[in-house]
């Protein structure tokens, strides 16, 4: 193989990796013994999620809502995805499927949003509009010792996810997120809920959910 052909093959592989919508994540092929949508939040967390060797996107969305609100009132993946998207906790551009194994970067991004962590300069300037958003979120959680180790593309087990959420909940309690006012989510059917955004304050380190 000449150098030119090798270069073309390598470039093609790189483009395929970038354009591939599903990345490296696998999918769950065997459905769980019990449909977790029929379980209450405590049974879902302690009887189902913690025993999963790999967590799916749907399960991660469900537990993210439990962490954010204390309970999950949704009934399907579509509802959860919509609820999280409205609050900016996930990005629809990821195009994640419900049975797909969730990676640490996605979990980190959701935790950062829920915990209202603004992050560093890289995350604010680049991650805010999508470039490396999950990777910077993971680095932020590593800095805060909420996540110990791992790359942003690696899947996560149920036990580890519960441990991460345990520390995230501790962070929320210490930082006062539990007592903060909930983020006002505009309702598309009610124009009065759409408020004109106020001018950004001059204070340093302002906290924002976005």
């Amino acid at each position, binding site marked *: 193989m000449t150098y030119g052909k090798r270069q073309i093959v390598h470039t093609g592989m790189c483009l395929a990796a970038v354009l591939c919508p599903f990345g490296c994540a696998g999918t769950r092929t065997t459905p769980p013994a019990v449909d977790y949508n029929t379980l209450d939040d405590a049974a879902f967390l302690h009887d189902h999620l913690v025993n999963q060797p790999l967590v799916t996107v749907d399960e991660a969305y469900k537990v993210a809502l439990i962490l954010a609100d204390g309970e999950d009132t949704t009934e399907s993946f579509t509802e959860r995805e919509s609820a999280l998207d409205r609050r900016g906790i996930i990005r629809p551009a990821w195009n994640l499927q419900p049975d797909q194994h969730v990676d640490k970067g996605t979990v980190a991004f959701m935790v950062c949003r829920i915990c209202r962590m603004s992050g560093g300069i890289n995350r604010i300037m680049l991650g805010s509009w999508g470039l490396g958003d999950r990777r910077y979120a993971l680095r932020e959680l590593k800095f805060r010792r909420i996540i110990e180790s791992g790359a942003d593309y690696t899947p996560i087990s149920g036990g580890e996810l*519960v441990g991460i959420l345990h520390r995230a*909940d501790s962070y929320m309690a210490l930082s006062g997120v539990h007592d903060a006012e909930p983020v006002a989510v505009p309702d598309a059917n009610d124009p009065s809920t759409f408020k004109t955004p106020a001018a950004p304050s001059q204070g340093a380190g302002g906290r924002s959910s976005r």
Partner: protein
Amino acid sequence: MFHKLVRLTVFTLLLGSAETVLAQPAPATAPATTQPDDAALPAVVQQVQGKVFYEAPGQAGTWQPVKVGDRLMPGTRIRTMFRSSVIFTLSDTTVVKVDKVTVMRINDARRTAEAERVRIGLEYGEVRAGVAEREIRSDFTIDSPNATLARRGTHDFGIYSERMTRRFTVSLAGDGLVQALNHLSNQYRTVYARQQVTEAMVRWINQAKFDWFVSIQPTEGMTSLEQSVAANQGGSGRGVLDPGASIQINTVVDGNAGLNLQTALEDAGLPFEMTVPGRLFNQAGSFGLGGATPLDGLVKDQPLLRGRRGFFAPRNRLVTRLHPDGGARSFRSRHIGQPRVGLR
């Protein structure tokens, strides 16, 4: 001896008469004042926050909400949700707090003639406890899949265990000491006040100057001291020392970092000394990285620091690996007679 025997006999007679009196039907308003030996101790719930559930012994799968005043018998499982916790007491000497996202079981809680025995089984999550020893000795243990916490006359200790990852933390905030057993390695570690031990089974001294997290970074952005510290404990930068021990590590630091380390050791009160062992080091070594190693730019008169009591445990990665790219290092230099000082 005779007088002691007489006193013992009189005491026994008095005790027997007291039991006889108590065995008579007591007035309706008089509460029971004695408790028979080997009695199971109920866990009395003192405080509940958020969503906490318990599963009574013999009722597997049936979870009920916990309320203040509930008396939970041995064999009861407790689980908590986010933003939730429960505090219960066992007799008047033991307080246990079950923190958020935790599942635990009261395996045993009884009072014998010699001691008050409590066994807590922690499936995962975090449990903190405080024990005040009174007339009866307290035998308190928290067992988890990853580690066991055994208490030795202390209060305000805690254990956190994570499922599937083997991670755990045993901490002691109050006085006394606890003992942590790592089930994976069968290592014991004694934890003193204001210390904690993790699955790495090394203690790290409570000094804020050394308590920083060094994440995995390109070596170009790190000083030689930072790289050496990052090589310890998987990038956390933590190192501990057994009290009274004297260990030696060898590292390379540039001039300013060496002065900073010397100042830090002096401020911490750790005895150390500057020595020149006379060994040689490799000025040209790049270890295949093409630059950006702690030895780059090393000049022949750069000193290293050596402390008689350093703050790194023996056989830790800093001794054996010495650099984030791993592997043991032995240095030889083309410049004979250059000073090299290691941390002792």
